[in-house]
């Protein structure tokens, strides 16, 4: 029986590199001043996680993450440039607020989860599957025992598609979506329509 995850030092080194890169690029997402760069840093983080998945022998999932995220981050970059006040990050700016609180919350979350990961004694039962059969097993599972889960995921995606089209559609039940819309005021108590919004 082959132990699925190789224990050679090459894999360890690769994991160390990909793991650190995933976290670092993830952090860069929120420290860069350009919207487009932020989405590509996030993509880099996803690609590194995808590569770790490949090391863990979940190759299909790993490649799928890259495939999916390349598309999703493209959409995200378009949205960034389209809706943000700093198109394409041509001008330098900062987007951070409540920096300390967030940093503390992030650290807390990391420490709590990491201690769970390190301290809890998970059963030591490594996967023993040939690399080539992993995906075949996943396919059999999707269309066998877990078919209900798989179908639910599909139905959820369909519902999402219909829902998001309904939400973004310009024509609603009560007329055009932007009917009566006004720019938001800068002061919370101000009337949106009194022109202070533009101040």
């Amino acid at each position, binding site marked *: 029986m082959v132990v699925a995850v190789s224990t050679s030092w090459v894999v360890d080194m690769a994991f160390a590199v990909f793991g650190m890169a995933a976290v670092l690029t993830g952090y860069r997402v929120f420290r860069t001043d350009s919207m487009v760069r932020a989405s590509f840093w996030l993509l880099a983080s996803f690609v590194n996680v995808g590569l770790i998945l490949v090391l863990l022998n979940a190759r299909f999932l790993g490649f799928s993450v890259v495939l999916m995220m390349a598309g999703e981050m493209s959409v995200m970059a378009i949205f960034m440039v389209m*809706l943000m006040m700093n198109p394409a990050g041509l001008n330098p700016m900062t987007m951070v607020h409540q920096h300390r609180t967030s940093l503390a919350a*992030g650290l807390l979350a990391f420490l709590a989860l990491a201690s769970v990961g390190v301290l809890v004694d998970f059963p030591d039962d490594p996967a023993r599957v040939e690399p080539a059969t992993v995906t075949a097993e996943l396919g059999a599972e999707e269309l066998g025992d877990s078919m209900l889960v798989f179908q639910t995921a599909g139905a959820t995606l369909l519902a999402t598609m219909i829902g998001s089209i309904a939400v973004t559609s310009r024509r609603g039940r009560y007329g055009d979506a932007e009917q009566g819309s006004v720019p938001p005021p800068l002061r919370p108590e101000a009337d949106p329509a009194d022109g202070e919004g533009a101040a």
Partner: protein
Amino acid sequence: MTLETVLVVAAALVGVGVYGALSQQSFVMIMMGIELIINGALLAGVGLWAYSTGGSPKGQMLGVVILTVMAVEAALGFAVMTNIYRVRKADITEKTKRLRG
């Protein structure tokens, strides 16, 4: 590479995601934070599948479900954001404090 190290990396990704989701003002940036959290969850799930379930295909199934969640989150996030933008001309959270419209 052991289960512990994989879980620590996953925890770090979640931590960075929490930091991002709380510290950013722009909707898209907050979505990026959430995506990072889900990303960490995916890594932890697959790590557990590889090291402590004996390679049961159900573990990978969890990964597929997490990918679905990611897609749903992104699609609905963009949809809601587009609509808020259309109606309120707002793209950062502080502009939507009065959600009454």
